C-alpha cells in the first residue's frame, strides 16, 4: 500500500478527532449544552417534577406569593394541598407548573423552526447558487422578505392564520429562510468552483447529486452554527408573539402567555413575570452560548469575522 496515502489519511482522522475533542473542551459548548440538557430533561419529565396540571385553577388560591401553600381542585373535583413554589396567577393556577410545561413549547418551537428554516433555506440556497436562471428571481423575493422587519412579518402571518403551534413555527421560519438562503447561496458560489465539483460534472454526475452529494456536505458546519442562532431567535420571537397576544392561544402554557397574563398585575405581583422571564432569558442565553462555542470550533472562518 502507498505509505504516503496512508499517512495523509491518518492525518485526516487525527484532525477530525481533535475537532471533536476541541468541541468537548470548549467551555461555551460545555456550559450551553449542560444548561440545555437540564431544560430538555425538565420538559420531558414535567409531570414528575412536583407539578400539577398547568390548566388547573382554584379561586381560593388566587394571587399567592411564591412558596405559599394552598389548595387546588383536580379534574376529578378532588381538593388537594399544593405548595405554589413560584406563586399563583389571578386565576389561581400554579406558575411553577405552567413554567415547567412552558419549557416544552419553547424548546419545540426553537428546534422545529430551526429545522424548517434550514431545510427550506438549503433547498432555495442550493437552487439559487447552482441553477443560475433561478438565482435572480429567487433572490429578489428573498430581498423583499428580508426588507420586512422579522417581528412585524411574524406577527402579521400568525394573526392572519389561526394561531397554533404549526402556524407559529411556520411564520417564524419564513422570516429566517432568506438569511439561510443567502448563507447557503454564498457557500455554494465558492464551493462550485472547487476542482472536485468540476471533476464530478465532467464524470456526468446528475445535477441533483452534485448539489446534495458534493456541495451540501461542505456547508454543514456553518449551517449548524446558523441553526443554533435561529433556534435562539425563534424562542424569543415566540415569546414576544404570545406576550403581545397574537401568539399561541392563552390556554396553552407558554412563557410568553404567562407573562402576558401577568403584566396587568405587574406592580402588585411581579412573580408572574419574573419566573417565566428568567427561564426564557436563561434558555436563550444557553442556546446563544452554545452557538458561539460551535462557531469558534466548527467554523473558524466565521469566528474570525466576529
Amino acid at each position, binding site marked *: 500500500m502507498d505509505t504516503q496515502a496512508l499517512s495523509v489519511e491518518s492525518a485526516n482522522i487525527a484532525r477530525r478527532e481533535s475537532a471533536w475533542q476541541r468541541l468537548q473542551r470548549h467551555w461555551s459548548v460545555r456550559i450551553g449544552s449542560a444548561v440545555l440538557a437540564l431544560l430538555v430533561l425538565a420538559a420531558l419529565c414535567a409531570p414528575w417534577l412536583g407539578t400539577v396540571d398547568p390548566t388547573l385553577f382554584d379561586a381560593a388560591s388566587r394571587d399567592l406569593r411564591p412558596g405559599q401553600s394552598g389548595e387546588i381542585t383536580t379534574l376529578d373535583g378532588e381538593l388537594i394541598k399544593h405548595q405554589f413554589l413560584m406563586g399563583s396567577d389571578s386565576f389561581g393556577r400554579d406558575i411553577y407548573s405552567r413554567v415547567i410545561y412552558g419549557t416544552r413549547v419553547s424548546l419545540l418551537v426553537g428546534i422545529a423552526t430551526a429545522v424548517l428554516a434550514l431545510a427550506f433555506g438549503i433547498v432555495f440556497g442550493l437552487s439559487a447558487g447552482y441553477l443560475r436562471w433561478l438565482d435572480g428571481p429567487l433572490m*429578489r*423575493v428573498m*430581498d*423583499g*422578505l428580508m*426588507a*420586512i*422587519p*422579522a*417581528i*412585524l*412579518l411574524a*406577527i*402579521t*402571518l400568525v*394573526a*392572519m*392564520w*389561526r394561531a397554533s403551534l404549526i402556524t407559529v413555527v411556520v411564520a417564524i421560519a419564513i422570516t429566517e429562510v432568506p438569511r439561510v438562503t443567502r448563507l447557503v447561496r454564498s457557500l455554494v458560489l465558492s464551493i462550485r468552483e472547487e476542482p472536485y465539483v468540476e471533476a464530478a460534472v465532467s464524470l456526468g454526475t446528475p445535477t441533483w447529486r452534485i448539489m446534495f452529494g458534493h456541495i451540501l456536505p461542505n456547508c454543514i458546519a456553518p449551517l449548524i452554527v446558523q441553526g443554533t442562532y435561529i433556534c*435562539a431567535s425563534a424562542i*424569543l420571537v415566540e*415569546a*414576544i408573539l404570545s*406576550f*403581545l*397576544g*397574537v401568539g399561541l392561544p392563552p390556554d396553552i402554557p407558554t412563557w410568553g402567555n404567562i*407573562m402576558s397574563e401577568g*403584566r396587568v398585575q*405587574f*406592580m402588585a405581583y*411581579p412573580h408572574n*413575570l419574573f419566573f417565566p*422571564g428568567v427561564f*426564557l*432569558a436563561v434558555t*436563550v*442565553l444557553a442556546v*446563544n*452560548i452554545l452557538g*458561539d462555542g460551535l462557531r469558534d470550533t466548527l467554523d473558524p472562518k466565521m469566528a474570525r*469575522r*466576529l
Partner: protein
Amino acid sequence: MYTFILRRLLSTIPVLLVVAVLVFLILRLTPGDPAAILAGDAASTEQIAQIRSSLGLDRSIPVQFGIWAGNLLQGEFGRSYFYKMEVTLLIAQRIEPTLALAALTILIAVAVSIPLGVIAAWRFGGWFDRALMGFSVLGFSVPVFVLAYILIWIMSLKLGWFPVQGYKRLADGFWPFLHHLILPAITLSVIYIALIARVTRASVLEALGEDYIRTARAKGLPEARVLMRHALANAAVPIATVIGIGIALLIGGVVVTESVYAIPGLGRLTVDAVLARDFPTVQAVILLFSFAYVLINLVVDMSYVVFDPRIRY
C-alpha cells in the same frame, strides 16, 4: 457618484415592489373576512356582502392589487377599516412617538457602544473585554419586554426616577417629553448596544493589527489619537453597516417596547391593526417600516464615501 445614487435608488424599487406584493398576498390569501369582523356578530349575510362590496373586497385579487398599488403611487394608503379615517392621517398622528423613540435609542446606542467597543479592542483579552463580550451575549438573550419590566421595577417603582408608563408629546414641553422617553429608549438600546459594540470591537481589533498603527505609535502619537484617528476611523465602514442592519432589530423592538410602555406610536398601531384585521393600515405600516429600513441602508451605503475616501462610486 450621482449615477451611483440614482442606480441604488432604482434598485430599491424592485425590492419595495416585492414587499408590496408579498404584504398584499399575505393579507388577502388568508382566512378571516374583514367585512364580517366590521359588520359585527348580529349582521346578516346581505349586510356583510354590502360592506364587502363597499370596501372593494368582492373584486378579483389582481384587480384589488392594481387599485391599491395605483392609489399608493398617488400617496393614497386608503381608509382604515377599524379607525374609520384616512390611513395617512392615522400614521401622521402616530409617527411622532415612534420617531422620537427610535432617534433617542440610536443616539444612546451609538454614544455608548462605540467607546465600549474601542476600549475592549484596546484592552483585548482583559477583564473589560471579557465583561463586554459577556454583556453582549446577555444583551442578545434577554427579551426586550423582560428587560423593560426589570427596568420599570427598579428605576420607576423602587427609585421613582422615571414615570412608569405613558407618553408626553413634544408640544407638552421638552422635559416631560424626554422624561417619559428615556426609560423606553434605554430598554430598546440594550440589544443594539450589544450588536454595535461587538462589531466595533472586532473591526477596531483588526485595524489595530495593521502596520500604520505601529507607525503611528512609533512616531510617538498619544494612544487616544492612535485609537480614534487611526484605528476607529479605519473601522468605520463595518460599524456603519451594522448600524444600518440593526434598524430591522430596532423596528421589531419598537413594536414590543411601545406595547409595554403604553406609547401610542406606530408599533402599537401595528399590533392593534393586525388584531382587528385592518388591512389598509397593516399594509401601510409594514410598507412604511420596510421603506424606512431600505432607505436607511441606502444612506449607510452612501456614507462609506465619507468614512473611507478610497471607496468611489
